[in-house]
């Protein structure tokens, strides 16, 4: 449980970090909170020769809300997301989700940027970002670009981020209406057996907008566009919810692991999603 050898770098700005990453190339990895990366390094599944630590890059640590848009710096920790009342007012689902990640010790270190850039299907933030329709800002040798969360995840640990790019910030619209992040896990500190992020807005009795995304039920987060659309078209009656859930379940592809066989996860996922939809609707 001891990592391989590596050189440690601590750039002070985004351009400096990008330049270092370009220079060191494949042999280098960016480190944020280290709570996904260091365990893999201790198992020697990852043996980067250079670690570029982003903790001194001040501009990556921020939360701002203005003009209906939220902007969060990649190095903002999960604990900071939880602590921000401004963020809670603008998008309460972020605190609800963050509180279900790991335990307080992990959350003091783990960052939103590391969580979404990691590409681990077990991470909770990626589905949340898809649900929020977030945009990720990436900075690389060729400048800056934006990728939408719903297009970012390609396979487990494979994302649209180029190896030489750094994720700098995350932007998404403020939320109105109801929300829920429901997660089933075996214990505190565990990744999801199944989890669902749901945002709903209500107009009278009908559903004005809906957004659903799922965690750890495929090799990427699962954005459920059709299920979301069904709720908007057919409302929140029992049959409609049932068929929306069924549609979402059509998109998942869970695997057998210590949390249980795929068959169980499908069942649990349906229950969790239905609970999340009901909770979000009750709050809308």
């Amino acid at each position: 449980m001891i990592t391989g050898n590596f050189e440690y770098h601590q750039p002070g700005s985004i351009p400096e970090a990008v330049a270092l990453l370009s220079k060191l190339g494949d042999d280098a990895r960016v480190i944020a909170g280290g709570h996904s990366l260091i365990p893999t390094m201790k198992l020697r599944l990852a043996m980067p020769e250079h670690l570029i630590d982003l903790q001194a890059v001040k501009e990556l640590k921020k939360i701002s809300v203005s003009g209906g848009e939220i902007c969060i710096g990649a190095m903002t920790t999960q604990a900071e997301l939880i602590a921000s009342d401004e963020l809670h007012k603008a998008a309460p689902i972020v605190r609800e989700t963050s509180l279900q990640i790991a335990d307080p010790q992990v959350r003091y270190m783990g960052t939103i940027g590391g969580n979404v850039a990691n590409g681990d299907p077990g991470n909770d933030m990626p589905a949340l970002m898809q649900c929020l329709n977030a945009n990720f800002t990436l900075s690389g040798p060729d400048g800056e670009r934006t990728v939408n969360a719903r297009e970012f995840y390609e396979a487990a640990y494979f994302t649209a981020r180029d190896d030489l790019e750094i994720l700098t910030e995350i932007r998404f619209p403020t939320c109105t209406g109801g929300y829920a992040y429901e997660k089933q896990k075996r214990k505190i500190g565990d990744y999801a057996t199944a989890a669902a992020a749901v945002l709903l807005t209500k107009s009278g009795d009908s559903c004005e907008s809906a957004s659903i995304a799922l965690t750890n039920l495929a090799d990427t987060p699962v954005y459920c566009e059709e299920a979301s659309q069904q709720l908007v078209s057919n409302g929140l009656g029992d049959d409609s919810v049932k068929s929306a859930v069924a549609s979402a379940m059509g998109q998942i592809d869970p695997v057998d692991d210590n949390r249980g066989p795929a068959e169980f996860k499908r069942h649990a996922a349906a229950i969790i999603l239905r609970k999340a939809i009901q909770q979000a609707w009750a709050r809308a």
Partner: protein
Amino acid sequence: MSATAESVQERRAALKGLGTSRKRVEDARFTQGKGNYVDDIKLPDMLFGDFVRSQHAHARVKSIDTSAAMELPGVIAVLTAKDLEPLNLHWMPTLAGDKQMVLADGKVLFQGQEIAFVIAEDRYIAADAVDLVKVEFEELPVLVDPFKAELPDAPILREDIADEKEGAHGARRHPNHIFTWEQGDKAATESVLSEADVVAEEMVYYHRTHPCPMETCGSVASMDKVNGKLTLWGTFQAPHVVRTVASLLSGIAEHNIRVVSPDIGGGFGNKVGVYPGYVCSIVASIVTGKPVKWVEDRMENLSATAFARDYWMQGKIAATKDGKITGLWCHTTADHGAFDACADPTKYPAGFMSICTGSYDIPTAYLAVDGIYTNKAPGGVAYRCSFRVTEAAYFIERMIEVLAIKLNMDAAELRAKNFIRKDQFPYQSALGWEYDSGDYHTAWEKALESVGYSKLREEQAQRVEDFKAGKTRKLMGIGLCHFTEIVGAGPVKNCDILGMGMFDSCEIRIHPTGSALARLGTISQGQGHATTFAQILATEIGISADDITIEEGDTDTAPYGLGTYGSRSTPVAGAATAMAGRKIRAKAQMIAAYLLEVHDNDIEWEVDRFVVKGAPEKFKTMKEIAYASYNQAIPGVEPGLEAVSYYDPPNMTYPFGAYVCVMDVDVDTGVSDIRQFYALDDCGTRINPMIIEGQVHGGLTEALAIALGQEIAYDELGNIKTGTLMDFFIPTSWETPNYETDFTETPSPHHPIGAKGVGESPNVGGVPAFSNAINDAFRAFGLTHTHMPHDHWRIWKTANELGLHADS
């Protein structure tokens, strides 16, 4: 008159003796991070060892190339079996009479097995060097299922003993078979079964798990080549045994070996055995002439040091129509892994599994245990239980439930109907034990009344109605357990480990100013010995517990003892403490009589002093006596005030308890929620109620872990699937319910202070209580038994198989 009475009380309270909830004296250092554990030991020029381990569960080792590792700067040596062979240390004896490879000798038999030991200047270099050792394997077929061990196509695991027809515990019928151990009357039991009104049968599996103490195993060996002395610090639950074994193995004279167990961060049985790391650190220190530290990491601890349980218990229980049990039959298939490294007394290869008749008066019984080799880590230790007692308790407490279902009877009533009655003690069990004392009916009634048992059953029946009506998806389970433990091993005539009788010891030195030092052969791993043993002594010798230092764990200073496991410290070393205290008091009486100028028989003991009978104003306190013992010439009495006692207990002690667990179980998600947990423990005389409560809370939480998710699981290739704490369940405060503790007090008649031991009861009784609650939740839907661990998906699977997901 009342003034003296009060002052007697005050003086008694000031002693902080038996029955006082004295705060733990250890905690001042533990809570400040000031403990001194093995990994805190730092010696000049100390080197570090680390293992190259096998990724395969069964393979031939074709070659080991250490050259690249040796070239890494800072690497001192890389040991393989070839290097240990000339010393005859490439294999070592296990506690169970088998032998185990220290480093792979031609083949590996489980994933994680030790292949080479790298010695380097620091642990980082050692870890890098481990990666550079190249091992060439030839994979062999893997055996993970003990029921396939004797099939014609089964691979032969232990080629070293393949032809040996006799093992340490009798005949072997197959190269993969270790022993068959039988107790009781087979023919009589079979005839009872064949003639019984009712027979309930079940296969009860107690899965493989691991003690997983917070501190992993480790050692620091330091060979002083000048004076020829070896000092060995380590995570040892039995330091004296380690010294003797080390001497026998290494040929170093026993007086030249000093073994020290410093603070130990939890043991739970994991630290009873001898591990290759200890041997390698010793050899490495002898070879290099420098101190060598070895400390395993969490994954090594979970995958290579001793596991617990893994018993497949096939049971049959016979009864009359109205529920009087007439016979019990059990055949156990015990998966011992690659080497038989169980920590059991020599004559008991399946430990005290024969306590499996439990709290019940069962006239006829038979038990057979088959030990089997598989490609899994060795072990089979008593994880917070006396040897295999938790397996036995789980077995009988499940069988009772299964029988209750068959009889269509309430399980609480069935228990009460079959308890051994108070007037039957001392009770001779069908499998050969003599239960010392008990009052099961009183405890049981108290428990049922405290939880409002009949109301709970009514609520449960209503819940079933509501579930059937579609009003809820949660079922309710009531988990009952009445367990009887057998602890305090034990009488030397029956119990030894590697030939060493299982007595224990205490040596007391009273200082001239009236404070004391007591040393014991045991070693605390968090049980609070420094607190409780001082309390036993305080009551015996009238010196405040605060003025008594307790020392354990250093073989150069502590008297010989067999160590701490199997809830034996209080029953055995606690008894030695009381007996040594009584010797002190006997001498003190002679001194006091001399000082008071009366005959020995004219004075009597009162709390902290000897008082002249009929003249309460004439007395000598223990403090005064201590001073006089050193400083006054007393005719016919040697100076000083010291005593030693080596205590060989006449019998085991039999703590018992009544537990009730109430759970809600969500049939869709498989999530269980413990609503209530009531634990009544009877551990005889209660030394420190607060420590008892702490032990009960801790033991119950470990029981919860085992019942609800904690397991060491292997895939069909022998890969360990639960090698990290992400998958190996350790409950946090979040998963831990509130526990209500309660007690009755039935002293042991043969123990000097009547104490029976409590450290392991909650684990022994807790596991069946949690498991019975899960099983009971589904009883109304036709379930008789489902295996642990009851994690979400297995509960879901049970519900699914019962058809409870039909319309969800």
